């Protein structure tokens, strides 16, 4: 048994080190600018552990809301940071101005 397992160890170790190299070592910060009632970018790709900086340049309060999920409130002319904890792919919108929409894809690190 031991011998069988050890035979598989080197390839597994190699694979693990390859994966480690492929995945960014450090969590990043992604800036999403809200201006003239639009999210930019509206399509966000991120990894668990990344932080989104929601930068609201409008004179209006906005939200980034996932129906039946989370919500970030972003007051007028303010920046709010939120760390991404969960791998998910969700549509979000502004609860106050539902024409504002976007999509967030969070992948496991």
């Amino acid at each position, binding site marked *: 048994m031991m011998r069988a397992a050890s035979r598989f160890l080197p390839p597994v170790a190699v694979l693990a080190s390859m994966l480690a190299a492929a995945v960014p070592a450090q969590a990043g910060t992604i800036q999403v600018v809200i*201006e*003239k*009632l639009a999210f930019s970018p509206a399509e966000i790709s991120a990894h668990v552990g990344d932080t989104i900086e929601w930068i609201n340049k409008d*004179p209006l*309060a906005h939200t980034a809301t996932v129906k039946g999920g989370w919500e970030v409130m972003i007051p*007028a002319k303010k920046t709010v940071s939120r760390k991404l904890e969960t791998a998910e792919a969700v549509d979000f919108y502004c609860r*106050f*101005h539902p*024409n504002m929409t976007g999509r967030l894809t969070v992948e496991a690190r």
Partner: protein
Amino acid sequence: MSARSLAALAALCLIGSTAFATAQDKPTDPQIAHIAYTAGAIDIEAAKLAVRKSKTQAVVDFANDMIRDHEAVNVQALELVKKLGVTPQDNATSQALGKAAADERARLSALDGAAFDRAYVDNEVAYHKQVNGALEGLLIPSAQNAELKDLLETGLKLFQGHQAHAEHVAAELK
């Protein structure tokens, strides 16, 4: 004829029978600031009336959204004119808007219940359509100051959303 003047002409034709018909060809920035602020204040007054009078949740919610958004934009407009050292200038368009709004408020005040809801929401659809047409065709192209133009463009996006929201509520009430 340039695309811009065509658009302005189209906007003027669309709103020909309304207050904006009396606008000069090209309002100045102090006049534009006054018109934009007045248009916002009018919608806030109408919304406050609706919050007092309506018993329909969708109508009250819509009206509260109008108060929140138009107050936010008007606060921003006041900050901007202060920063730019511009004194908003009263003008025929603002006066005509004010007069039309006073008439509309009197008409709405006399209504109750479902009749009020319908009249308020229908007027909100028409009013936002009118203001958006004027912003797009006349006020934004005429604005000289970049920050004023920027605020008007934000206003246009916002009020287009309001118009869609009002149309949605109007459809619900039918």
